[in-house]
């Protein structure tokens, strides 16, 4: 058949295009990894060296760079705290929106959306002033709290769409069994939507881990995050490519490992949010 031959041709072409896209996607990351393992001379060599003797100096050097290890640990703390705030608060709010009619419901929905859309510097400067005054500037707690302006609407929006998937019958059955709202939420909605909640938590964690703009302005010495530490390599005067690349790899790695193990959840979170929002 003519059409099947054309099909075959189209499919081959589809594979070629996909392969090209993968190459373009992965090449910069692979190159970054290679630079992190090269000596300065190898990194600057022209023509570029594809085969080289890898060195671990840049990674070891990071251990001695003041504040780098601390920044990594700070990011772990801030991410954990931020995810905890977002998920625990969003579960209740999502249940409220899903299960009840109330005055100001529409307004609350619009507020969530607009808060999510606000440009960072609108709230960074006022939060900076407030935090300086009450002593929350440069603290994990303060940073994790500011992140909620973005993470909370995102989590409410996603968790709510997962709650919508919970069969009505289960909710009814829980009521008939005499469950109050907290028990229904705990024994029906949370277990049923657990994969969705996990997806939300993962996406929130990725966002917080990778965030720079807010962390740059609201942290100083104590709670510098990993992205701020990586950003400190920017600037044309110090072209320390090796260590800059090593720091970037260290910052990427946790999320990459995360992505490999939690890929199913990530795709679920990203797609359900927009397909059924």
């Amino acid at each position: 058949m003519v059409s099947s031959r054309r099909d075959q041709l189209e499919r081959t072409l589809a594979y070629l295009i996909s392969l090209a896209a993968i190459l373009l996607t992965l090449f910069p990351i692979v190159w970054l990894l290679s630079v992190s393992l090269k000596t300065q001379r190898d990194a600057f060599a022209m023509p570029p060296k594809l085969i080289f003797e890898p060195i671990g100096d840049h990674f070891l050097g990071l251990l001695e760079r003041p504040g780098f290890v601390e920044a990594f640990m700070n990011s772990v703390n801030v991410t954990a705290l931020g995810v905890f705030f977002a998920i625990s608060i969003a579960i209740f709010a999502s249940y409220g929106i899903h299960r009840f009619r109330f005055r100001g419901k529409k307004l609350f929905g619009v507020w969530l959306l607009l808060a999510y859309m606000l440009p960072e510097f609108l709230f960074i400067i006022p939060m900076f002033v407030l935090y300086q005054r009450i002593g929350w500037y440069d603290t994990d707690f303060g940073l994790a709290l500011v992140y909620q302006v973005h993470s909370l609407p995102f989590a409410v929006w996603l968790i709510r769409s997962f709650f919508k998937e919970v069969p009505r019958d289960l909710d009814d059955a829980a009521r008939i069994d005499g469950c109050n709202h907290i028990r229904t939420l705990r024994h029906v909605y949370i277990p049923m939507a657990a994969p969705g909640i996990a997806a939300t938590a993962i996406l929130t964690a990725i966002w917080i881990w990778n965030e720079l703009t807010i962390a740059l302005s609201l942290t100083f010495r104590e709670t510098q995050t990993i992205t701020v530490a990586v950003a400190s390599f920017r600037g044309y005067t110090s072209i320390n490519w090796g260590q800059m690349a090593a720091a970037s790899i260290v910052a990427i790695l946790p999320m990459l490992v995360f992505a490999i193990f939690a890929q199913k959840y990530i795709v679920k979170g990203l797609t359900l949010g927009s397909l059924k929002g």
Partner: protein
Amino acid sequence: MPAAARNRVVYFLIAPAVLILAVTSLYPAVFSFALSFFNWNWGVQFDFIGLRNYVDLFRSAEFWQVLYQTFLFAVLATALELVLGVALAVVVDRLKFGQSIIRTLLLTPLMVSGIIVALMSKIVLDPMLGIVNYVLISLGMAPSPFFGTTATAMSTVIMVDAWWQTAFVFIIVLAGLQSLPQEPLEAARVDGADGFQTLFRVKLPMLRTVLFTILIFRTIDTLKVFDIIFGTTGGGPQIATEVMQTLAYRKAFSFLQMSEAMTVMVIFSVIVLAISLVYLRLEERLEED
């Protein structure tokens, strides 16, 4: 959806969220708006100056250039990411084997922080020592100064953003394509439509709400661009890639012109929120159709 009940309990459920939103969004919005009528540079000077900050901004050529550049970046980056993402989704949707591993690999840029994307692109796109120019020269093409000149810097940051965020469009459109009901596609095939016609006349129109949602998110996100530009050009050369958020950063933290920075952000927020609300309306209408 369960028959929504009226109950006081709901206010306890949403109270923590309302409280946090009040502190992180309502207070800053009111504070910024109020401060935009003062003249405050971190010091003791704190005078009410009415609309002076606004008048000064509207009179400065720099402000209009930065506003224009912000939109230029947003429109071009969003358009590029939408076209590439949809095309890639259509292509990957056709694959029979290895689709899931290909999808995973194509998703990686979304795991990478914007600042790392920026530093990474500075390494590969370095005019003298970068691998990309080396490849271009080897292929007999002209090397590019990339971030180095006012003529090329903007298109380079747009390209970098596309490398980073096309995956977002791709993954959602792919899931959308795969969740389409089969009957309309069958009907189109029976009517003798070829692949292209089915795509443009049936599949993409069926995905219009999804595409629209993606359009909203990418537009707002690109308007708010910061790390990509901060990490590569820092707004330069001169102010060729300066955008609203880098301008606010520079005014607030380099020049300590707090009120001016807040005035910039108040104007910009009004623009962003207006666009969000218009989109929201249009989306409601799309869903009604």
